[in-house]
């Protein structure tokens, strides 16, 4: 089930919140756990066994956590078993096909290629489970004694399918005791509505341009349209994911959880380094906390630092998808980050205008590598981006960019404005006012109207 669907907003959510509100505090976690499992099962209707797998994973990690927490001696062994168990499932479901197809290509083998359906949310809940057991091992967190509470933590539906990746200690206190109020409900609903608007009114809309370009065929677009396209994709990705994270935060708030912010105006960055502290913040934190720092971070000299960055970005790329273009994307980012670290970073930070121009080019181009899985197509698109190359195809529609700008201009402008801090500043000022309530009400119903007309797409990060 997607947050931006009529079923979720008008059936699941009201039903859940009613039951949740009427339940005494003692059992609220159980309701959260149960409701989240129902939510999860709606997403895996074709493979109900995945529900079992999910529950098994929760149980297993809960037990491992207890073992690690209560035994000094064997805890390293338990940690290893836990990590292997968690990652084994992720690798099996997500990367087997990729691994097999590469072995087949390199070694001319003939390993069977079966189409395995990915259990939804596996990339997210795996990382959460692993962060928990590592934190318990490090004595950073106390093992959760209640299975229900642990289950509620991992499965809580606001962040189950697409993050943010919430670490255990972020919500540990709130799992035990949290306060509910009408004010929180109101705040949470407003945040949810903003996220919904981002997704339905901006991301889905502007994603239409990227889809249109795919329909035309990359070889048949003009250079100007090609650039419009990558900007459209960049906006779609941002508003889709950021919107979803906002919806998660809003829903969490209603239930008394403080889910951490996942995006902090990434498109205002002047360097890629800064960008990755503002984009998918919880993922970056996870990699820093559980891979980069254990490897030594930047504390053992330049060579080791470079190696550590390389490993982190190799895996960051792979986490996003089991395909070579994601690996290349990760490696390109690694290259840029190293370039900034050792050469141009200070310069870009000092001359911010140049930094912005640099990012203006680098962001859409790197997202292009992320977006197009087929190398041939990627190559075709790249040639379209370069204005000096003669147009290969005579099929291109003259002034096609005029047509598409005409259709998408309003959305582009809205996207640009919403990428800045201006709206949030305004929001903070008008938050308590009736004007704000009416405005968000309008936003909400516009979104519902759109969904009603059937123009909704599943969240882009769902292949995770």
């Amino acid at each position, binding site marked *: 089930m997607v947050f931006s669907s009529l079923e979720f907003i008008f059936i699941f959510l009201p039903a859940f919140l009613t039951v949740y509100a009427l339940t005494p505090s003692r059992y609220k976690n159980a309701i959260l756990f149960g409701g989240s499992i129902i939510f999860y099962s709606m997403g895996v209707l074709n493979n109900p066994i995945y529900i079992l797998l999910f529950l098994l994973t929760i149980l297993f990690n809960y037990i491992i956590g207890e073992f690690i927490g209560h035994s000094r001696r064997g805890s390293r062994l338990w940690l290893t078993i836990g990590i292997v168990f968690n990652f084994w499932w992720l690798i099996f479901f997500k990367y087997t096909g990729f691994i097999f197809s590469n072995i087949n290509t390199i070694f001319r083998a003939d390993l069977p290629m079966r189409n395995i359906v990915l259990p939804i949310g596996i990339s997210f809940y795996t990382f959460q489970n692993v962060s928990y057991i590592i934190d318990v091992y490090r004595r950073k967190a106390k093992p959760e004694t209640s299975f229900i509470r642990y289950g509620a933590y991992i499965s809580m539906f606001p962040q189950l399918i697409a993050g943010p990746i919430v670490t255990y200690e972020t919500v540990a206190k709130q799992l035990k005791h949290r306060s509910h109020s009408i004010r929180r*409900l109101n705040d949470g609903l407003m945040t949810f509505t903003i996220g919904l608007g981002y997704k339905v009114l901006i991301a889905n809309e502007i994603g239409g341009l990227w889809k249109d370009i795919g*329909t035309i065929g990359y070889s048949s677009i003009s250079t100007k349209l090609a650039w419009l396209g990558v900007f459209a994709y960049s906006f779609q990705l941002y508003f889709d994911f950021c919107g979803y994270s906002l919806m998660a935060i809003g829903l969490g708030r209603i239930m008394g959880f403080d889910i951490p912010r996942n995006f902090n105006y990434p498109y205002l960055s002047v360097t890629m380094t800064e960008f990755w502290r503002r984009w998918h913040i919880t993922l970056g934190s996870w990699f820093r906390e559980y891979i980069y720092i254990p490897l030594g971070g930047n504390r053992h000299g330049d060579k080791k630092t470079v190696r550590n960055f390389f490993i982190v970005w190799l895996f960051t790329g792979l986490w996003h998808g089991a395909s070579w273009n994601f690996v290349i994307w990760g490696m390109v980012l690694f290259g840029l980050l190293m370039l900034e670290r050792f050469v141009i970073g200070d310069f870009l930070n000092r001359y911010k205008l140049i930094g912005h121009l640099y990012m203006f080019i680098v962001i859409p181009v790197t997202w292009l590598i992320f977006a197009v899985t087929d190398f041939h197509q990627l190559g075709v698109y790249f040639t379209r981006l370069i204005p000096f190359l003669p147009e290969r195809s005579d099929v291109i529609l003259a002034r096609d960019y005029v047509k598409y700008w005409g259709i998408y201009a309003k959305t582009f402008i809205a996207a640009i404005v919403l990428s800045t801090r201006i709206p949030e500043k305004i929001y903070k000022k008008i938050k308590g006012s*009736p004007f704000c309530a009416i405005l968000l009400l309008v936003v909400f119903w516009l979104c519902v109207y759109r969904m009603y007309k059937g123009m909704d797409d599943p969240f882009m990060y769902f292949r995770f």
Partner: protein
Amino acid sequence: MNRYKQFLFTVLLLITCFCASPFIFVKIWKNSAEEKKAAATPPPMAAVEANAGVQTPTAEAPADKPADQQEATEVPKEDSAAKSGSYAYEKADISYFNDALFIGDSRTVGLQEYGIMRDISEFFCTSGMATSTVETSTVSGHTLNNLLTSVKYGKIYLMIGINEVANNFDTTISNYRGIVDNLKAKQPEAIIYVMGNLHVAASAESNGITNANIDYLNGLIEGLADNERVFYLDVNPEFDDGYGALKESCSGDGIHPTAEYYKEWSQWICDHTVPDGKTPPAAEPAAAAEDSTEPAQAEETPEKKDDSSNEFFTHTEG
């Protein structure tokens, strides 16, 4: 009252949701019921035989050709070389399209943007166009009748139906027939091509928009062709994947071919033409409302760009 200001949003939301919920529930219910129905309904193949017995009501050509109709309404799955009417089409020069009018939906828009005839022919098309909306739509300030009464076309291409393939076939084909009759009446000398709707890719088939349904509708459309004034063209064999669906590589979204393929398609249309002058002048006085037919115009040469009757010919990019 002040306290309520704090959760005004929640209150307004609850009230409006409460009021709207019946409509929303109905929509959700209908949506899931439709999906189940579409999955369960087999394509109306059984009705194909029934259709074979139907005579074309437009007795344009004096001799009714039931044999042709039998061929036309056979389940058009296999062999398609015979599909594009059983007529020996010829290649033409691109100037053939100087006096052409293309009517249709988003696939025709694709031809308008990427076809070889894009700056040459007149186009009356828009995304979503359907048999029920052709006569009432306005495109670039004209209605279809505006165009039909102000310009003389040598040939008219009609391709429509994909947006209605999940609707009642009888209604659709009867609308379609009405459109063809109108074209014949207003443009008595024009060659009329009715084009089979392009398949969709196997991955894009959904709720009623299936290749089986498209084939069925195309079969009905083919039944309107008489190979004298009205001709049937179907490009599907060129772009099919061997299983009755559009080749995945032809399309980005499974429904619209890419620009390159629109170009190929338009070239195919250019290679399958009825030469000007081959159609008999309007024999049935009932059909030709106006009496402006001159024998000279029946043999119009492909070169018509300087012809005075093209004064009103506006090349709009729409």
